[in-house]
C-alpha cells in the first residue's frame, strides 16, 4: 500500500495535475482520506473519504484554509525537518491513521501543492496490540510458573530464550552469549552426559518429557532444571525448531530428597523396633479410649495380636476381664495423668494364656509440661525371670540355712559348754565348797538364758512366729522405745532425737518397733566405743523413681526412720555382709551377729525396706522406710 511516488521534477509548463479537476480525480482514487493544499495552505481538493475528518462535505472545504485534523497532520509533516515527503502514524478520534504527506508539483503554476493522505490502520493496530498482549500474558504466565521458554532453530543451531530463562540461569539479559558451547559451562559435571543426550535429542527432532539435569550458576549454587520440549513446524508443515519449557525444580528435588531421607529414617526405626527383644507399643489417648497406634514384632509375639486387632479392643485385649479391676488400671491411670510408671501384672494372650508381664509406660511429650496423648509401652514376659529368681532365692535360703545352723551351733555349743562342765563339776563340790557351787549355778543359769535368747532371735529371723500388726502412731512408738533404752546406754553416748513424722500411722508391732530401735541404736553406740552422738530421725519423705527402685519399693511417700552414728564405720566388704545372720565383728558374748538380720526381717514383715550406708571412720547410717497404714486411724499412739 505504498503511496504514489512522484519523482522530484523541475518545474515545467505542464503537470499531470494541471488543473484542480484532475487533482481531485487523483485523490478520489486513493483508498485513504486525502486532501490537497496549495502553498498558501488553502484546500484545493478533498475526497469523499476525507469528509469524516474534515467534519463537512468535501466541496465545502475547498477554497478555505486547511484546519482541524488535516491542519494538525500538515503541521507535523512540515515540522519533520524539511523532509519533503514523510509518513507517520497518528491516532485520531477512536482510530489510528498512517499519514502520508508528499508534494504535488504543478508544471503550469510554479506553486507546490501537497497531498495529505490518512490511511485508516485502526484494525491493523488492534491486531498488533492483541499479539503484544498475548505475548505479555504468556510471559507473565511463564514468570508465575517459574517457567522459561526457549527455541532451538535446527538449521543454525541457534537459540532464543524468554526473559525467565535468564533468571533461571542467574544471568542478566545481556550477560550470556548464546551457543551450546557457552551453555555447557552451566551444566553440572555429573550431568554432562545427560545434557548432551537431551541436546542432541532435540536436534534430532525428538520431544522431551521431564528431562532433568543440574546446572551450576555463576554464584556456585546448584539448581535442578526440568525440560519439556516439542517440535515446531513451519507453514509448509516442515519441522524447523524445538520449542521447550524450562523449570527450576530444585526446591521440589530437595523436598523429594528430604522425603526420601525421612522415609529411610522411618524404615530404619521400624526395622530397629521390630528387631527389639522387648515388646514395644505406641498408644494414643486423644480419643475416648486408648488406642494402639503401633506394636512391634515382639509385642505381637508376646500378646498374639497384631496391631490392627489390638486397635479393635485397646488395652482390654490384654486383660482377663474387659474393664475389670486388675493391674492394667494402673497403666490406664498413667495415661490419664501423663506420668510414667512400671508395673508387674497379668497379661492375657490372644489364645487366653496368661503370663506375668513387666509393663513400663512413658509419656511421649510434644512440648514439656503439656499433657501427653501418645505413650510408649514396653512389655516383657517375666514369668521365667520370676521362676529363676525363685530358684536363686531358694538356693540363697539353703545357703542361709547352712550359715544359720553353723552359727546357731557355734553359739549354742559355747553356751552348753559351761552348763555341761559346771553341772558335772558342781557335784564334786556340793558338800565341800557350796560357795563355788553357787557360782557355778549362776554361770549355768546365765548361759541357759543366753541360749534361750539365741533361739528366740533365730525364730524371729526365721519368722516362725508372725506377730500381729496394727495401725500405730509410729512417732509415739519410736519415742517410747528411745525412752526405754536411754538408761541402758553408756554414759558417753548422747541420744539426739528428731521425730518429725507427726501423726503418721503405720502397720507395725510395738514390740518389733522397740526391737528395731534397740538393735540400731545399740549398733551405733558400739560403733563409737561408747562415746559420741547417735542421731535418731523420723520423717515423712518422698521417694522418687530412682531412689525407690534402689530400695526395691514403689515410688511415693514413705515414713523414714534413720539412726546415724559418727563411729568407726564399715568397709564395703563388711557392709555387704551385715544382713547375714551371725555375721559379727564383735567379740563373743557381745553380739550374736543376728541384730541387723532381725531388723531386716522385721522391716520386711512390715512391707518396708532397710538400707545401710557406711564409710570407714566416717560413721554409719541405717535407714528404714515404712509404708503408711491404709487408713489414717491409730488404734493407739503406743502400747
Amino acid at each position, binding site marked *: 500500500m505504498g503511496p504514489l511516488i512522484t519523482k522530484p521534477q523541475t518545474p515545467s509548463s505542464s503537470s499531470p495535475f494541471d488543473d484542480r479537476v484532475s487533482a481531485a480525480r487523483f485523490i478520489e482514487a486513493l483508498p485513504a482520506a486525502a486532501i490537497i493544499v496549495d502553498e498558501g495552505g488553502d484546500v484545493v481538493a478533498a475526497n469523499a473519504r476525507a469528509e469524516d475528518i474534515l467534519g463537512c462535505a468535501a466541496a465545502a472545504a475547498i477554497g478555505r484554509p486547511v484546519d482541524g485534523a488535516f491542519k494538525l497532520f500538515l503541521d507535523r509533516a512540515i515540522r519533520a525537518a524539511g523532509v519533503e515527503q514523510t509518513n507517520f502514524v497518528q491516532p485520531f478520534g477512536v482510530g489510528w491513521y498512517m499519514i502520508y504527506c508528499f508534494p504535488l508539483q504543478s508544471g503550469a503554476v510554479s506553486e507546490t501543492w501537497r497531498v495529505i493522505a490518512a490511511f485508516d490502520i485502526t484494525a491493523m493496530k488492534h491486531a498488533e496490540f492483541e499479539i503484544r498482549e498475548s505475548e505479555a500474558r504468556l510471559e507473565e504466565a511463564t514468570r508465575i510458573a517459574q517457567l522459561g521458554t526457549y527455541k532451538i532453530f535446527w538449521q543454525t543451531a541457534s537459540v532464543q530464550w524468554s526473559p525467565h530463562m535468564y533468571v533461571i540461569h542467574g544471568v542478566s539479559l545481556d550477560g550470556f552469549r548464546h551457543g551450546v558451547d557457552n551453555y555447557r559451562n552451566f551444566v553440572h559435571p555429573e550431568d554432562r552426559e545427560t545434557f548432551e543426550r537431551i541436546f542432541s535429542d532435540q536436534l534430532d527432532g525428538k520431544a522431551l518429557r521431564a528431562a532433568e539435569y543440574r546446572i551450576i550458576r555463576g554464584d556456585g549454587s546448584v539448581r535442578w532444571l526440568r525440560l519439556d520440549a516439542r517440535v515446531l513446524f513451519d507453514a509448509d508443515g516442515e519441522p524447523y525448531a524445538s520449542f521447550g519449557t524450562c523449570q527450576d525444580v530444585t526446591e521440589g528435588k530437595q523436598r523429594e530428597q528430604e522425603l526420601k531421607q525421612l522415609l529411610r529414617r522411618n524404615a530404619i526405626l521400624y526395622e530397629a523396633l521390630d528387631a527389639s527383644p522387648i515388646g514395644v507399643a505406641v498408644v494414643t489417648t486423644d480419643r475416648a479410649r486408648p488406642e494402639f497406634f503401633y506394636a512391634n514384632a515382639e509385642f505381637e509375639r508376646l500378646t498374639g495380636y497384631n496391631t490392627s486387632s489390638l486397635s479393635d479392643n485397646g488395652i482390654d485385649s490384654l486383660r482377663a476381664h474387659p474393664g475389670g479391676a486388675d493391674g492394667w488400671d494402673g497403666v490406664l491411670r498413667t495415661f490419664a495423668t501423663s506420668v510414667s510408671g512400671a508395673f508387674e501384672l497379668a497379661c492375657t494372650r490372644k489364645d487366653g494364656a496368661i503370663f506375668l508381664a513387666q509393663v513400663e509406660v512413658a509419656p511421649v511429650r510434644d512440648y514439656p509440661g503439656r499433657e501427653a496423648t501418645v505413650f510408649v509401652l514396653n512389655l516383657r514376659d517375666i514369668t521365667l525371670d520370676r521362676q529363676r529368681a525363685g530358684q536363686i532365692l531358694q538356693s540363697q535360703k539353703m545357703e542361709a540355712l547352712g550359715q544359720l545352723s553353723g552359727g546357731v*551351733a557355734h*553359739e549354742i*555349743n559355747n553356751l552348753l*559348754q559351761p552348763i*555341761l562342765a559346771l553341772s558335772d563339776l558342781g557335784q564334786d563340790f556340793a558338800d565341800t565348797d557350796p560357795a563355788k557351787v553357787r557360782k557355778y549355778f549362776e554361770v549355768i543359769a546365765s548361759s541357759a538364758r543366753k541360749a534361750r535368747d539365741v533361739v528366740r532371735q533365730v525364730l524371729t529371723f526365721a519368722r516362725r512366729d508372725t506377730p500381729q500388726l496394727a495401725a500405730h502412731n509410729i512417732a509415739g512408738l519410736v519415742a517410747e522405745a528411745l525412752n526405754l533404752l536411754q538408761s541402758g546406754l553408756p554414759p558417753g553416748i548422747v541420744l539426739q532425737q528428731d521425730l518429725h513424722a507427726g501423726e503418721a500411722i503405720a502397720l507395725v508391732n510395738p514390740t518389733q518397733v522397740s526391737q528395731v530401735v534397740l538393735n540400731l541404736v545399740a549398733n551405733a553406740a558400739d560403733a563409737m566405743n561408747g562415746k559420741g552422738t547417735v542421731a535418731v530421725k523420723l520423717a515423712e519423705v518422698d521417694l522418687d523413681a530412682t531412689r525407690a527402685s534402689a530400695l526395691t519399693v514403689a515410688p511415693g511417700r514413705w515414713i523414714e526412720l534413720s539412726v546415724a552414728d559418727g563411729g568407726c564405720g564399715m568397709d564395703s566388704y563388711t557392709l555387704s555382709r551385715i544382713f547375714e545372720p551371725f555375721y559379727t565383728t564383735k567379740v563373743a*558374748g557381745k553380739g550374736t551377729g543376728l541384730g541387723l538380720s532381725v531388723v531386716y526381717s522385721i522391716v520386711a514383715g512390715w512391707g518396708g525396706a532397710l538400707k545401710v550406708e557406711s564409710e570407714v571412720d566416717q560413721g554409719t547410717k541405717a535407714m528404714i522406710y515404712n509404708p503408711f497404714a491404709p487408713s489414717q486411724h491409730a488404734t493407739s499412739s503406743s502400747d
Partner: protein
Amino acid sequence: MAHILLVEDSPEVSLSVREILTAAGHSVEDAASGKEALVRLKGSRFDAIVSDIWMPEMDGIALLKEIRGAGNNIPVVVISGGAPNAPLTYTAPLAATFGANVVVYKPFERAELLKAINTALSP
C-alpha cells in the same frame, strides 16, 4: 601335773574349762585372744595350750601359725564349737593342718578334755 595356757574369749567357757583343769590338778593361765596368748607364752613356760578357734583379734588358727612358725612344738588342744560361718566339720582338718595335736568339740565332758590333754602331752 601340767602348766596350761587357756585361750578362750567367752568368759563362761573359760571359767568352765579352767575349773575342769584345776580340779584335775593342772595349773592354768588365761588369755582372751591369740594376741594375748603370744604375750603369755613369752612370759612363762607352759606344758600345753588349750585354745578356742573363733576369737576376735587373733583367732586359734592364726595363733597356731605363729607358734608353729616360730618352731615351738608345744602340745596344743583345740576346743571348737564350730566357726559361725563354716560347717562344724571344717574345724578339725583346718586345725590339724596348722599343727593342732588334738581337736575336741564343744560341748565336751570333763573326761574328754582331760583325755585329750593326756594324749597331747604323751610323747
